[in-house]
């Protein structure tokens, strides 16, 4: 059954699995049913059952992965659209993003080390709060395992989306701007989609948070990590 590892069949399977996972999430409205996670589980199950190698899968998969970099460049458009908002609130935004970014890197590194994680794993966790392509690029730069980062980023997104509003209620973070910003900063696109559920204003500031934290994390992670060594 050579056809089972046909590149175009595997690409079609990936599109279909993702489309159905998206439909499943729309129907159920459950943030746990993340389309990336569900379609990856479906494809992994397929590869295991049919004994098709990950190398065969990646012959098609790399054409999908190729679009990650242009997609990050495309984030320049929402960034540009929010420039006037950013300018008006420049100082509070920069200060809170800076604090959130550095606190995130330090806390994840310290807790992971305390619980006995290896150096390679610690490096893979440092950029866990930001959107996957940026986090994976940062992990590559600091010598972690990009795929592990991708997995952790998805876990963080699910966790942040599920608990974010409860945490903010308990800690008296009440202003819409602070709430949106915090969700986007801590839980990237998945936190942003959760914020978008509440209102566009929350969503706008969440996407601002994910953008600024993405840049800060890319710029600062190597430096913060070297200070922690």
């Amino acid at each position, binding site marked *: 059954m050579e056809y089972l590892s046909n590149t175009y069949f595997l690409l079609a399977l990936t599109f279909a699995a993702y489309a159905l996972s998206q439909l499943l999430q729309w129907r159920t409205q459950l943030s746990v049913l993340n389309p990336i996670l569900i379609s990856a589980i479906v494809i992994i199950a397929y590869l295991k059952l049919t004994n098709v190698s990950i190398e065969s899968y990646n012959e098609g998969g790399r054409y999908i992965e190729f679009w990650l970099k242009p997609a990050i460049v495309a984030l320049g458009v929402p960034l540009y659209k929010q420039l006037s908002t950013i300018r008006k609130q420049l100082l509070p935004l920069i200060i809170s993003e800076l604090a959130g970014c550095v606190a995130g890197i330090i806390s994840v590194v310290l807790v992971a080390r305390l619980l006995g994680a290896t150096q390679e794993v610690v490096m893979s966790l440092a950029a866990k709060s930001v959107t996957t392509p940026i986090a994976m690029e940062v992990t590559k730069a600091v010598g972690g395992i990009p795929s592990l980062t*991708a997995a952790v980023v998805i876990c963080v997104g699910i966790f942040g989306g599920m608990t974010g509003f409860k945490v903010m209620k308990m800690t008296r973070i009440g202003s819409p701007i602070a709430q949106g910003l915090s969700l986007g900063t801590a839980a990237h696109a998945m936190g942003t989609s959760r914020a978008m559920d509440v209102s566009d204003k929350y969503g706008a500031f969440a996407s601002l948070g994910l953008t600024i934290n993405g840049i800060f994390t890319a710029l600062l992670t190597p430096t913060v990590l070297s200070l922690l060594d």
Partner: protein
Amino acid sequence: MVIQCAIIFGCLALGELVVWLTGIKLPSSIIGMLILALLLQVKAVKLRQVEGMANFLVKNFGFFFVPAAVSLMLYLDIICAQWLPILVASAVSTVVVIVVTGWIHQLARKFF
């Protein structure tokens, strides 16, 4: 669509050039993003010249990292071996980021 691709890949290529010239420890894609925002701001690029392609890419962001998530099967052993530090550290740190960002923002707005 060809012009839109030319602009986005052009920004990415410029990002690659900056990395190659300076050896900066920053992904070329992020530098490309900043270049695109800058070009839009100085009106060297008009919004309608990139918006369609950019929206398509941003809206389908999730799909592009499915293969990366599939590659996860290669790392199941590492995750299982160290699931406690990985999951606990990520959860604790996510709460820390939410609280620190929110508190500092509310505090900073009182002063500025």
